[in-house]
């Protein structure tokens, strides 16, 4: 139970995804399961795809038709609760927020973790986005097999040198 462990149920996770046809294009998956006073996802989206109403405690909702999968909301969300997923030739291409140093390198193979913190599959870093305007949250592009679409959420942290 998420209230006790921090891990959402399969049903909760599924409720954040559009259907697989929609996912042929990259879409933001917002996992913000409980009302908190917060709205940078809404205000950061240049395409007006995310809505948090006047009462900023209401959970964000997304219009997948408007979402281009650009990933801007991903590094603006203070809860690190958003990722972008896309299905491509049997693989998932995901964009995830990452706030650890050292950053992985493009082309590197990393361990991909599920929401319980277990390693589930190796994945390939296809791009690392990290510019000044991203406010110290990097965007990692990771490729994994489609079977892990609903499980993958982050990558294992590399330990820095002392």
């Amino acid at each position, binding site marked *: 139970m998420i209230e006790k462990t921090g891990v959402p149920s399969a049903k909760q996770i599924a409720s954040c995804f559009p259907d697989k046809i929609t996912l042929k294009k990259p879409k933001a998956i917002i996992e913000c399961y*409980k009302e908190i006073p917060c709205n940078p996802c809404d205000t950061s989206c240049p395409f007006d795809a995310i809505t948090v109403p006047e009462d900023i405690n209401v959970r964000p909702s997304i219009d997948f038709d408007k979402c281009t999968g650009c990933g801007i909301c991903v590094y603006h969300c203070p809860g690190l609760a958003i990722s972008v997923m896309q299905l491509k030739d049997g693989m998932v291409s995901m964009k995830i927020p990452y706030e650890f140093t050292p950053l992985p390198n493009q082309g590197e193979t990393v361990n991909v973790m599920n929401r319980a913190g277990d390693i589930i599959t190796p994945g390939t870093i296809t791009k690392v986005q990290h510019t000044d305007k991203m406010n110290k949250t990097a965007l990692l592009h990771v490729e994994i097999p489609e079977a892990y679409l609903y499980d993958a*959420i982050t990558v294992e942290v590399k330990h820095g040198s002392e």
Partner: protein
Amino acid sequence: MKTTECLIVGAGPAGMRAAKRLLDVGAEVTLIDRSDMLGGQLTKQTHMFFGSEKQHASKRGIDIMQLMIDEITNHPKLTVINNATVVAMYKDRVVGYVIGEQYHRIQAKAIVLAAGASEKAIPFENNDLPGVYAAGAVQTLMNVYGVKPGHKVLMVGSGNIGLIVTYQLLQADVEVVKLIEAADSIGGYLVHASKIKRLGVDIETNMSVKRAIGKDEVEAAEIWRLDEAWQGIEGTEEIIDCDVICMAVGLAPLTELLQQMGAKIMYVRELGGNVPIIDKDHRTSIERVYACGDMAGIEEASSAMMTGEITGLSAALDLGHAVENYDQEVARLRQELANLRDGPHGEKIRQGLKKLGVLS
């Protein structure tokens, strides 16, 4: 004795915002803080903040702090006294503070108290062993001084502070063995909890520390399951290998100075303990003495900024300054505060403020 028009004690978000409002209307302000820098708790907050754009959401705490510092520094009517701890306050608004060994006094026409809060501790055997830390101290070590508190941490408390400090420990490459919580569910935002769980930190509810184990410093912790009455259950003990026990079990407003001054105080559990009795405009029971920020009830930096502004405005008014659009400004701030305090996480604050008789 030195004199000032308005003395502000504490240069966190509440104090700095009160200063800004007072300076804006032409008041003369002295800002005093025991630390060597401005910013209060924000000096150690490297994470992105929640809230809405107006409250700088998505910016990092330290960057918000810099914005507030830039707003007031070099103002000709502002005097800043750092490294100065206020130790005494009297009804005639004379305030005593120490710098090093030196005792000083200053008299003010108005005093805004924004001294924040102190961290609570929980009782368990050996809780005075080196290696038992409060979360704020751990955060200061890491984020202000760049020092790791240890190698393996047991975190106690699942409020936002426990969850955030856990994440920051992981960022500093320190292992967090487990996070335990005495209540039956996670206290802080679930997004913060998910953030650490997916990195492998287990969260266990209904658990507390029985004792710290070690001769000269923490070598392990014994934890146990709690029953519904929060009593430890014999036979459920578990030994956790760790060299740090980090307590994030809540904050209590620093009201001693106000008590010393004879201000009316009330115990409100939801606000963190003893809090000054204030009116909607943050006036205490003593004339021209105000309280805001965490000191008036434990909340957040965003709300501290707003209560600081409201306080600055009412002090300005009481000091006889013309405050343009006072009613509209205060109404807008109250509305923003109400928005923040709405929702399930604001429930406690709302109840506390009701008990105090203010729902500003």
